[in-house]
């Protein structure tokens, strides 16, 4: 069992260079390797999921060093869930990318894709905040490569903004980690949890800054106001399957907040108190609003979807900001839901947009398979907008039901419900323009040909084959399954939340090193204090030197 914990990182990490450097001249073997690898990842994730389900917390000590001195990977229900979610989403997206030939429109798609999976899995599995930074770097650089896959002026421009914003976030991450290490002396999450409990509020100013800066860093990833600006441009201009995969990227930020700000800086910790919850709540409210406004005011389909993702992140973060087991259960339900909803929307949008000159919401002649596309879009849109029978509605009810604090109820409910309305109206307008109005629209022959010449991107006229439609259907199927099996799913999420809030179990699982590990010097609080301090500075600087290295 033990070594399997690291498999979701190592498998893609070994596969990616082989695809990228050995198989780079043949797309077929790259595709086979990539798909087989991702299926393998799903299988591994399922195995881990099953292992974690009974509630044990597994710790993998890298280099066989005892925690908190080495790096640990931690497999509990939450990380198993996230890895499972990642792998399933990845398989869906990958099949779409292969079926629609997106992977051939630039170089190294599959290698970058596998590296991306490695980065995401690593971020979910780690039990060390500096290691989390490293995997943020991995997934950032890989996602940048995927984001600008196949090039194009707008895409390059948006990609630059994406990478600059996120590098700024990484820099702040380093500041935060430096501050955290300088105020606690450790980077292991479990150890941090222990040390944070001991810091009185009278001495907490520095560590509070660290907690806040970390939250901002995670908020950049999760695209929360006021650091959400990168998301619409990125998602709207990324290749659609990549945008679909990015549905999990925002969740990395959300996950990090759930993990770190529950276990380390939880509301019951005197040093930080409810600081994180308060600010998150306010930011989430505004984010919901930005998302809703963006959906209603969108001129093009891809930005519309991007803003709907933004809105869903706001809703998710509202649930997270409560930091209670109940609300976290709802948050996890919504997290899984919104991941597949966003993916489904981007995938169906891709099928439509590549068959039409551009993604503007103006009336153009209907594409082939208008009815099929309309049905799929309808399904994905009601999922995202939170209408029954898909999981969005239950998720929304679940979140609302858990935000019962009288001080918050007015803001939170108004934001979510009015936001839903804007989203519904926005999607109805878009769908009507794309799929209904187009049926009554006949473009004169000569205009069509002129338009085609102007377009840089060639338009497909072929009907979508079963392979191309299947991933979209699978994503919507996930939403349906999450709705039908809401009870068992929520039970798992509830257990996950309970485990998450059982801080002591996590801490003891990580810090109680088994016998036979390299020795833990009990007397390390002793006479060598001065030497440690010197080294503290060194260790810290070491991080920044590495950063400068790439």
């Amino acid at each position: 069992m033990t070594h399997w914990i690291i498999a979701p990182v190592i498998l893609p990490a070994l596969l990616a260079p082989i695809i990228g450097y050995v198989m780079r001249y043949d797309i077929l073997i790259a595709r086979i390797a990539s798909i087989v690898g991702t299926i393998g990842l799903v299988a591994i994730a399922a195995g881990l999921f099953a292992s974690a389900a009974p509630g044990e917390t597994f710790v993998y000590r890298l280099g066989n060093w005892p925690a908190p001195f080495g790096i640990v990977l931690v497999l509990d229900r939450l990380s198993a869930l996230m890895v499972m979610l990642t792998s399933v989403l990845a398989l869906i997206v990958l099949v779409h990318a292969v079926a629609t030939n997106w992977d051939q429109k630039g170089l190294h798609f599959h290698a970058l894709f596998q590296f991306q999976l490695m980065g995401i899995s690593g971020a979910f599995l780690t039990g060390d905040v500096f290691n989390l930074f490293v995997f943020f770097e991995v997934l950032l650089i890989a996602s940048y490569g995927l984001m600008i896959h196949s090039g194009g002026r707008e895409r390059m421009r948006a990609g630059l903004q994406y990478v600059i914003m996120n590098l700024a976030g990484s820099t702040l991450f380093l500041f935060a980690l430096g501050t955290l290490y300088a105020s606690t002396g450790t980077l292991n999450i479990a150890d941090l949890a222990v040390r944070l409990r001991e810091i009185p509020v009278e001495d907490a100013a520095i560590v509070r800054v660290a907690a806040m800066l970390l939250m901002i860093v995670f908020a950049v990833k999760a695209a929360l106001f006021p650091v959400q600006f990168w998301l619409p441009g990125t998602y709207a201009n990324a290749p659609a399957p990549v945008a679909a995969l990015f549905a999990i990227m925002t969740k990395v930020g959300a996950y990090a907040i759930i993990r770190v700000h529950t276990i380390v800086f939880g509301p019951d910790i005197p040093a930080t108190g409810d600081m994180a919850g308060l600010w998150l709540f306010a930011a989430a409210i505004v984010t919901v609003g930005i998302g809703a406004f963006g959906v209603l005011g969108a001129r093009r389909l891809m930005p519309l979807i991007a803003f709907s993702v933004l809105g869903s992140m706001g809703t998710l973060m509202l649930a997270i900001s409560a930091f209670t087991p109940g609300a976290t259960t709802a948050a996890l339900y919504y997290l899984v839901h919104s991941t597949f909803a966003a993916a489904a929307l981007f995938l169906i949008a891709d099928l439509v947009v590549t068959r039409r000159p551009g993604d503007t919401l103006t009336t153009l002649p209907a594409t082939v398979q208008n009815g099929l596309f309309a049905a799929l879009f309808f399904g994905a849109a009601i999922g995202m907008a939170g209408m029954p029978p898909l999981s969005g509605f239950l998720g929304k009810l679940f979140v609302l039901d858990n935000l019962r604090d009288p001080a918050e109820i007015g803001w939170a409910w108004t934001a979510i419900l009015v936001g839903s309305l804007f989203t519904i109206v926005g999607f109805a307008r878009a769908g009507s323009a794309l799929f209904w109005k187009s049926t009554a629209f006949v473009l004169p022959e000569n205009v069509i040909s002129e338009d085609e010449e102007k377009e840089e991107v060639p338009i497909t006229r072929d009907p979508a084959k079963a392979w191309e439609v299947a991933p979209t259907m699978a994503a919507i199927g996930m939403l349906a399954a999450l709705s039908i099996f809401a009870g068992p799913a929520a039970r798992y999420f509830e257990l996950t939340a309970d485990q998450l809030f059982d801080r002591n179990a996590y801490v003891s699982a990580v810090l109680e090193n088994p016998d036979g590990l390299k020795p833990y010097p009990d007397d390390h609080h002793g006479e060598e204090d001065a030497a440690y301090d010197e080294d503290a500075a060194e260790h810290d600087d070491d991080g920044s030197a590495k950063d400068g290295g790439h």
Partner: protein
Amino acid sequence: MGDGSNLLVIIALLPFIGALVPGWMIRAGRNACATFTAVPTVLALVMLGILAPDVMRGEVIQARFEWLPQLGLSASFFLDGLGLLFAGMILGVGLLIILYARFYLSGDDPMGQFYTYLLLFQGAMLGIVLSDNILLLLVFWELTSLSSFLLIGYWKHLPEGRQGARMALAVTGSGGLAMIGGMLILGNIVGSYDLTDILASGDLIKSSEWYLPALILILLGAFTKSAQFPFHFWLPHAMAAPTPVSAYLHSATMVKAGVFLMARMWPALAGTEAWFYIVATVGLITMVLGAVIALFKDDLKALLAFSTVSHLGLLTMLLGFGTTAAAVAAVFHIINHLTFKAALFMTAGIVDHEAHTRDIKRLGGLAKLMPITATIGTIAALSMAGIPLFNGFLSKEMMLEEASHTYWFENPWIVPALATLGALFSVAYSLRFIFHTFGGPVRDDYPHKPHDPPFGMYAAPALLVVLVVAIGVMPFLADNLVAVAASAVAGEALHPHLKIWHGVTPALFMSFAAIGGGIVLLLIHRPLDRVWIAAPRPEAKAIFDKLLALLVGATRWITEVTHNRSITRYLAIFTVASVALGYAAWTGGGMSAPSREMLPVPPLVGLGFVLLIVGAASVVLFHRNRFRALVVLSIIGLMVSAGFVYLSAPDLALTQISVETVTIMLLLLALHFIPKETPRETRVGKKIADGVVALVAGTGVGALAYAFMRRDVDTISGFHLDNSYAGGGGNNVVNVILVDFRGYDTYGEIIVLGIAGLIIYALMQALLGGPAGRKLRNTDFTRDLSRDRHPLMMVVATRVMMPIAVMVGIYIFLRGHNYPGGGFVAGLVIAIALLMQYMASGFAWTQSRQRIQYHAMIGFGVVIAGLTGAGSWLAGKPFLTSAFGYFEFPPIEEFELATAALFDLGVFLTVLGAVMLMLFSLSRIARYAGQSVNLEPMDYDPADRVKPLEGGKE
């Protein structure tokens, strides 16, 4: 659960399962499609019939499955009198509509789709009336909004259909969302979302401080769905749907959902002042307003639509009165309205279908051309007018009776007077429907010659008018059903007796007044109509459209202004937010006194500090000139390295300085292909603002660093010092941290480098193929070129240095585990040596002498590092567990071999490969830009002293 429960669940599911069928059965033909659509409805109706006797006896049939227990959502259904009444209506009328639609839809309409939507809608409606859990009810409630959206927009090529559908969705959807809030509050008050529990907790609910918000939110849902003033405007526009849809949605189902909800929630919510004043008032206004507008509508369906609005108002008002007698009247009227209104819609549809117009002003005289239709229409319309012997009369009498003794703010006149006025207009538009459509002389200008339709088309309305007359003449037929449904509404056993003659009551006079006044109104309709048309009146659709356009415009403006794609602004916001939030966090906690003394500042350090600041300031000043900025930038890098040296961190200093060198060299090479000056983009004011932001952020970071550097903290690093040699086999703790304690981090970082290599390669490919490549090809770089690109001195010097540099690299690599150095630095050192060869003799020349591809080098590096880590699995140890040993090799002294060195080799290869790949990309750009490839090591070979160069080109 007994058989009844199972049947109940099957009833609720049947339409949804059935909805899967028509889409496929349409391939077998239209009749097959219609038949197979009818099957689930008929089955459900039969099962309902089986359950009906039990319900009529007063039993409540329940079924329950847990769905999302954490939320309190269960798939629980119950069937009581009210549910039975509505379920019967939904299924019964549904069946008639299926029959009617078979004949109504033309061959061009996709019938399979229609029946699918219809069954979905039927299922959603059925779900509403059978739900025993308010969250489940909400699910079905929203499903009706969605399925009706599809039904109303069924003719998607018609703009009215699309707009009507969107408007219906927006209005009913927003109501539904409000209702979600209301229902959640209600569940909060009671502590359960089960309807049975909620209905039993009426007193608790009404005394709660949350009662009013819950009531208002729930009523918003009901009012929007049931088209109550001021939300009535969507209903007429929904008439753009095919007539079977209108007949179904607007007689028996969708719009009745709001009324149903008020009836359902009656025991829990009704009976308070707030309930009376909100519900009864809104109902009264809607009733009168709808009736008045209906009189002036020329479109038959619009007339019926507003009449529906009016009748819904009537029902709402009755429920608002809060008395049991009013509830009985409401229940009875629900049945009656269903029968005559569905028949009327179908009649209107037949007229439209036959005459190809629904405009009353173009109709008239149809009685002679289509007598059967005219008979059906006339009977139904008379019932709508409330003429005795038809069922509409009975319930209207009951309504007037209730109105006659209702006080509104202690005013006894206003309710009866307005109720009578509503009834009066109702008589007028009903009679207009009859006389202006069927009465009068036969015209010769119909768009199409009308005649009676086939039996299948008028069978459904005919059956309904039979009921109209039957109930009208023998009201006791409905006694039981009304009793059991009204009891369910009131929450207590009621035994009403429906009869035609109530004696001489105020209601009778009001009725007569209404009929008399209505006839008068019809007679003077023509002049009234002219006044109406001339009078200014708010056009709901125009207002709605304008509001929506305004909203869309506003949201678009806000979105586009805030997301203006200015990265400087985004970064400024990010920075300001970080500083502000960091400060806010800071103020929430205290700080202990500093525990470390300030160290003295030697002059040399002070000088370095000043240089750093001057360097940073110079970059800001000179950044427009890229070359100068780059040079100044290197000063900063040097100072940082010097800082590391001063603070006894030789590893970091080595790394920093080699990274610095490689970066600057690559940047210098790249600088050749980009403009030498950056464009001026920012205004002075903005620059100052950005400068302030930068200063504040810098000060913040400085203050933070100062604060934590003055304080001691107990860190984990002691362990690393203690175990570096014993456990990691190295004296150099930094290196052991990099390759062992935290080798996993390093593994991640070299992967970052590897990915960067891939991206650079892919990016180059994409760029050179696009417009950027074309631009590059057409830019003239020749005047920037040196005349002597590969100078003799440089070539010779680099050749001489090469072996030394490689040796140094190997040395640094090997000593890394115990002394400053390691794979990362070694990779950079050798990269610098190679870089210089390339600079001296050109890429192609050097390239042809190098055997290993850097692509492969990166790949090997990453894989070697990974496999080294995985190798420890063979020993049963976790990933990256190191092993080391000391060996004697005769010529050399004792030598250490460590797996960590192998890992370091991976690091080395990746670093080297990545740098080389970057260089390769730059040279690709150069060749693309038209630079020639040199075959000789240098431009001017002294051994070949004859040929002068021609124009700097080989």
